[in-house]
């Protein structure tokens, strides 16, 4: 194993920056397809600082099982879905793992689920990929989505059951294509899920990327979006609700590597119960070429009880001055006794008051998925979590 994964042999580009150099520059993060290129995970590493390795339930091991029978889908003419060999040249073309678990997923998934939205297809009904696990053996899954030119489709990837999953989702959004993808994590207790999403957006394409994490002891998602052509737009939304003992982490990254692109990142989370922990690290990089960039990222957390903790860190790296706009905001607030008193003083019961606040806070993000059936289902999951406290 190399002494540091940051060696040049994996074709890592080094960038020079201005006088201000943060601790680790997002664009310099090393990447590799091989597990052995990454050191054993430790909370001393910036990427894993909010976790203890044992929370990964073995997802960081060299050898993982594979998911295949756990995955169900319906292939159509407009949206062809099939398993291909991971040696296929497309696999790995959108994103290369930037951490050990993603590399483990990459190495161990011998097959990749290919989802192809046909050129110019207008797909009305959402396409659903269901991942229903039923055993705790740490396993790997690789998904490759391609939205071909001028297509327009909605894809829902749903995770459920008891499982421990290291996952990669590559998303290739081609010229002028529109893709709406939602990844739902509603695992049973005892589950851990670490997922790296890589999206590339070509000229004038549009991606709506949403994550919704509710169930699972550990759910950690690192969605990376890279603009490769001008005029593209991404809307990255996230909604999560951590109950006692759950760790829900999201690290969205938008790489503005092309001019005149727009990104909006909005994540909202609620927390309740002892040791409910959420982490949000939002990175945006505006490269020298990315003139005319317009970006805004926001994270809000609502702490419903004592004993919960929300970490929230927005980072903005700007290498060009010629931008339209760039901003970020992060706030974590308590739902406190005075608020509760105010609502109760209007006749609303304690339980309803909490429900009102949390739903009001989260539903806005749920609705952005634009899938009514999903909004209803996720809303009832939130209600159930509130009730179970």
């Amino acid at each position, binding site marked *: 194993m190399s002494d540091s994964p940051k060696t040049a042999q994996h074709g890592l580009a080094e960038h020079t920056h201005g006088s201000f150099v943060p601790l680790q520059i997002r664009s310099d993060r090393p990447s590799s397809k091989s597990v052995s290129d990454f050191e054993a995970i430790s909370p001393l590493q910036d990427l894993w600082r909010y976790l203890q390795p044992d929370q990964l339930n073995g997802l960081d091991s060299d050898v993982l099982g594979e998911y295949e029978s756990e995955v169900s889908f319906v292939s159509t003419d407009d949206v062809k879905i099939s398993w291909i060999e991971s040696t296929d040249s497309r696999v790995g073309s959108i994103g290369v793992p930037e951490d050990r678990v993603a590399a483990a997923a990459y190495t161990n998934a011998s097959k990749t689920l290919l989802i192809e939205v046909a050129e110019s297809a207008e797909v009305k009904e959402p396409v659903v990929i269901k991942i229903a696990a039923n055993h705790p053996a740490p396993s790997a899954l690789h998904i490759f989505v391609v939205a071909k030119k001028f297509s327009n489709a909605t894809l829902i990837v749903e995770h459920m059951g008891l499982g421990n999953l290291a996952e990669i989702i590559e998303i290739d959004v081609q010229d002028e294509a529109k893709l709406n993808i939602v990844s739902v994590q509603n695992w049973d207790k005892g589950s851990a899920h670490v997922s790296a999403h890589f999206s590339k957006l070509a000229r004038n394409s549009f991606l709506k990327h949403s994550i919704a994490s509710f169930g699972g002891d550990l759910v950690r998602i690192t969605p990376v979006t890279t603009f490769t052509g001008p005029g593209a737009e991404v809307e990255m939304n996230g909604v999560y609700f951590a109950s006692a003992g759950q760790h829900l982490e999201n690290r969205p990254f938008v790489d503005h590597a092309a001019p005149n692109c727009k990104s909006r990142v909005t994540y909202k989370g609620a927390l309740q119960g002892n040791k409910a922990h959420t982490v949000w690290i939002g990175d945006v990089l505006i490269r020298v070429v990315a003139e005319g960039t317009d970006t805004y990222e926001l994270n809000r957390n609502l702490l419903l009880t004592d004993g919960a903790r929300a970490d929230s860190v927005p980072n903005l790296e700007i290498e060009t001055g010629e931008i339209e706009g760039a901003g970020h905001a992060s706030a974590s607030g308590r739902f406190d006794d005075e608020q509760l008193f105010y609502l109760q003083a*209007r006749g609303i019961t304690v339980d309803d008051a909490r429900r009102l*606040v949390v739903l009001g806070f989260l539903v806005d993000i749920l609705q952005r998925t634009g899938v009514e059936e999903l909004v209803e289902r996720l809303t009832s999951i939130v209600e159930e979590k509130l009730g179970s406290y």
Partner: protein
Amino acid sequence: MATLEIKNLHVTVETDQGTKEILKGVDLTIKSGEIHAVMGPNGSGKSTLAYSIAGHPKYTVTKGEILLDGENVLDMSVDERARAGLFLAMQYPVEIPGVSVSNFLRTAKTAITGEAPALRTWIKDVRDAMSGLKIDSTFSERNVNEGFSGGEKKRHEILQLELLKPRFAILDETDSGLDVDALKIVSEGVNRAHQANDLGVLMITHYTRILKCIKPDFVHVFVDGKVAEQGGEELADQLEAEGYDRYVKA
């Protein structure tokens, strides 16, 4: 005809220096349709009285009673009191992130009446009440009290008063921080609620100017945790001219 009776009410709070008695035997009876003004120096315990009636958990009743038509209010939770017909317009209304005004009003109305209001009439009722209080319709979609100015918060309190139709309202300095126009708008709202629902009002204030708009039947002077004197409207004028020195020194 309903009655709200406060009998020999003693209330303490926990402070850094230990337990502190703030209300020291308050007696006050309000009947439906009556308007009572409570005036008193800063720190005399007026807000404490208001919060204690509403049931704020910070305040502990150590002695005395609060009865609503003979029923023991002190046994009720905060929301039960509201559903029983008590309403507190707060001196400092809190912001509720994530809850829109329209959602909040509908939920409160549903809680108070026990059933969801018929949508069409409800929307009209809200719109009419808002326009009566000169609240811009865009407020419906804003979060409760979030970013509202002081005057907007007060108007929002009276909006709730008009829509929720309680039997008794305690208005804690609803007139503070209002300019002359806003004071007029808010007073008209209170008068409307008073007339429409035979509302009993306990109005806490420092100033007689609101008493020109909302005519009190009784004025109580509140000093050091209890009612020091009561009278009619003329007592307010006397207070304005002379201040509280007479009571405080006594």
